[in-house]
């Protein structure tokens, strides 16, 4: 018999939820192993190149479901490596939401006031900075000017970007070549590693089992570093506690698969999924009107034509983040850049018989790509996503060598969600079609269903065991010692970008998780100072290692 590897804490996934847990537990003295299904990349590996197999497809995961496609990170650092780093706090009213269950969805213990101190901590670590108007890209400026023209307000959003280093290259989704985006590779993860945590890339967790001593055995496959469809090995690690942080598109799938070995899962595992109410609209800007009506001028003869320039979303309209409005009528509208590769096929042109994503009119629309302005709606959806039976491995049947798979999530938007999208569509049109500034159409939901880069709530916290999988300490009901700290724990759509809220919740959960770890015999304490941001250099993978070792 080979000896079985063991650790105090096994963390599944190295995104926000995983990195924060790994840091605090390692800094408190526990032996921590992080298993991450994706590769370990850093600045030199991030490519400005759309070729399949470059970083754009290596670090990115796109899982098509039935009515919903989920986009997320697939690398050490998780979503923080591919994301746009817009980091607002969720407005006060979101915590009071009832959704369709007829009572508050969030645990009693959590409100904006009780979460603010945890938001403060994360904001200090990343760090989150405010943008001045000098930092705002043309696209953000255009959106602000259009909002202003329509009598609306517009805010530069707080970001996790080192503004001095940012080149406005808009290659955010391929990983930042210039170390300007302050991903988790700059803060929590180096902090965890400095305290002895071990990160193992290309290790995909498949299933959990219980061990005789009340701990857990975690089964994983090792994934080929080029072709993720290929498994090159497998193994197990025993742990006293397990932190599930594979993201809201993966955590419930691993838990569902583990039902065979762990026993019954709470009802809410793999239910109540929210896409954070996401939907995109593409506006084609009339350059002349942008000049005449909005007074915009780049100083080089162009009014706008700057779709490609910038750093993701920088300006948002928050006029509908108003707690006095009814639920499903509160949303934010954020300007965004979605790169070619995935960012044009769903955009619709006005065709002879209505909106069309293909054909002659679409080609004409593509000719004007530099005059596109994409607006990202974040509405309140109805937690209507449900995960079907898990695929044999991971969270999807992999189709492509990297990036693309087919998963078990189904999402059939309710009238509440459809109404919210319609209200947000109308608001975008009212702002942008005013005085001929632009023509606007939503992306089609026909091809891949709705889509989200903000998967949430598929294994959520709450006070009610019927509608929440986790108690308010993030412990999986009926399975003591398993905690979930990623986006799946967030109860519902937030009306703003979620990463800061996911992180604040993970920070908030840590004292309780440390206490539970101690109760399970782990020699760990809570209260280590927060990691200091590595200002110039991110976490580097060990010199002897390839991207996968």
């Amino acid at each position, binding site marked *: 018999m080979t000896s079985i590897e063991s650790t105090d804490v096994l963390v599944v996934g190295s995104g926000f939820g995983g990195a924060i847990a790994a840091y605090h537990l390692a800094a408190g003295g526990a032996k921590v192993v992080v298993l991450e299904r994706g590769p370990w990349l850093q600045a030199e590996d991030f490519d*400005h*190149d*759309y*070729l*399949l*197999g470059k970083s754009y*497809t290596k670090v990115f995961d796109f899982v*098509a479901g039935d*009515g919903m496609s989920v986009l997320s990170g697939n690398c050490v650092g998780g979503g923080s490596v591919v994301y746009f780093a817009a980091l607002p*706090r*969720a*407005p*006060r009213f979101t915590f009071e939401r009832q959704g369709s269950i007829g009572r508050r969805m969030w645990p009693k213990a959590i409100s904006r006031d009780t979460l603010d101190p945890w938001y403060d901590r994360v904001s200090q670590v990343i760090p989150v900075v405010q*943008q001045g*108007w*000098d*930092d705002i890209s*043309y696209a953000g*400026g255009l959106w*602000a*000017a259009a909002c*202003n023209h329509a009598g609306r*307000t*517009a*805010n*530069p959003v*707080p970001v996790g970007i080192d503004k001095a280093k940012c*080149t*406005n*290259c*808009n*290659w955010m989704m391929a990983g930042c*070549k210039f170390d300007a985006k302050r991903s988790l590779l700059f803060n929590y993860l180096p902090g965890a590693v400095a305290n002895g945590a071990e990160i193992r890339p290309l290790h995909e967790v498949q299933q959990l089992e219980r061990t005789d001593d009340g701990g857990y055995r975690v089964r994983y496959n090792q994934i080929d570093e080029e072709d993720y469809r290929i498994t090159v090995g497998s193994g197990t690690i025993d742990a006293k506690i397990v932190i599930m942080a594979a993201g809201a598109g993966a955590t419930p799938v691993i838990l569902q698969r583990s039902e065979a070995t762990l026993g019954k899962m709470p009802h809410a595992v793999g239910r109540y999924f929210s896409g954070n109410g996401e939907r995109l609209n593409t506006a084609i800007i009339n350059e002349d009107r942008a000049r005449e009506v909005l007074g*915009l001028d*780049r100083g080089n003869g162009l009014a706008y*034509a700057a779709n*490609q*320039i*910038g750093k993701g979303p920088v300006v948002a309209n928050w006029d509908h*983040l108003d707690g006095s409005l009814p639920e499903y009528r509160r949303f934010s509208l954020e300007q965004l850049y979605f790169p*070619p*590769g995935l960012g*044009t*096929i769903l955009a619709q042109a006005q065709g002879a018989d209505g909106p069309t994503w*293909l*054909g*002659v009119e*679409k*080609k004409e629309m*593509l*000719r004007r*790509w*530099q005059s596109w302005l994409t607006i990202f709606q974040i509405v309140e959806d109805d937690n209507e996503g449900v995960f079907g039976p898990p695929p044999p491995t991971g969270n999807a049947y*992999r*189709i*492509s*060598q990297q990036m*693309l798979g087919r998963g078990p999530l189904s999402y059939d938007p309710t009238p509440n969600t459809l109404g919210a999208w319609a209200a947000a569509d109308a608001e975008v049109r009212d702002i942008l079609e005013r005085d001929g500034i632009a023509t606007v159409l939503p992306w089609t939901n*026909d*091809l891949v269903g709705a889509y989200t880069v903000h998967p949430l709530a598929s294994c959520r916290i709450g006070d009610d065991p019927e509608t929440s999988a986790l108690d308010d300490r993030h412990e999986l009901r009926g399975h003591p010692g398993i905690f979930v700290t990623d986006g799946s724990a967030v109860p519902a759509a937030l009306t703003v970008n979620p990463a800061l809220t996911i992180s604040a919740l993970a920070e908030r959960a840590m004292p309780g998780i440390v206490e539970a770890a101690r109760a399970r015999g782990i020699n760990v304490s809570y209260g280590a100072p927060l990691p200091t941001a590595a200002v110039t250099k991110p976490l580097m993978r060990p010199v002897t290692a390839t991207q996968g070792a």
Partner: protein
Amino acid sequence: MHSGTSDEHVKTITLEAFADCIVPGEKRSPDDRAIAGVSTGGGAVQAGALEMLHHDATGITAGLEALVGMLNGHATTYAADKGITLDGDVPPFVALEFDDRCAIIRTLTTPGHPEKDGWVLLSLFCNMAFDSAAHMSTHDAIAQGHPGLLTIGFELPQDDGLWRFADFSYGRQLAKPHPDTTPSGSPA
């Protein structure tokens, strides 16, 4: 059989005709049957859709033959329904007019269609060949004047192959922030 009707040729021109619907282009020669020629400049075919579909990394290559057979089957049914007589020199899908080809693709990609997944994938990769030339290095694509990147007006990188935009901002306040913004810049 001469090359004009070989399986490989059928497969190629059927897929080209499909790609030409996703992003249409101009005919490569007057007798080009695959490309309908409804648009000027290069479309998905000229952009390399076929190379893209034959790229192993997509995971779709092994299924192409089956998709071609199904597509021509759908075209035959469609033509029969509409009373369209198909020219036997080319595969049924290619024999159809551009609008009819697009109508078939719309039906096949409608939510609930049992074959939808396959057609969406095919569409996705055809579009990707055009909008991002993902079957080749972006730098080679730019150097060769890739029709998709040219059409969308993709900006050129700097000499070291990286994109940087020194001029990126209007540099002035263009709207009033929301009155309930907190000192940290978030919604209240």
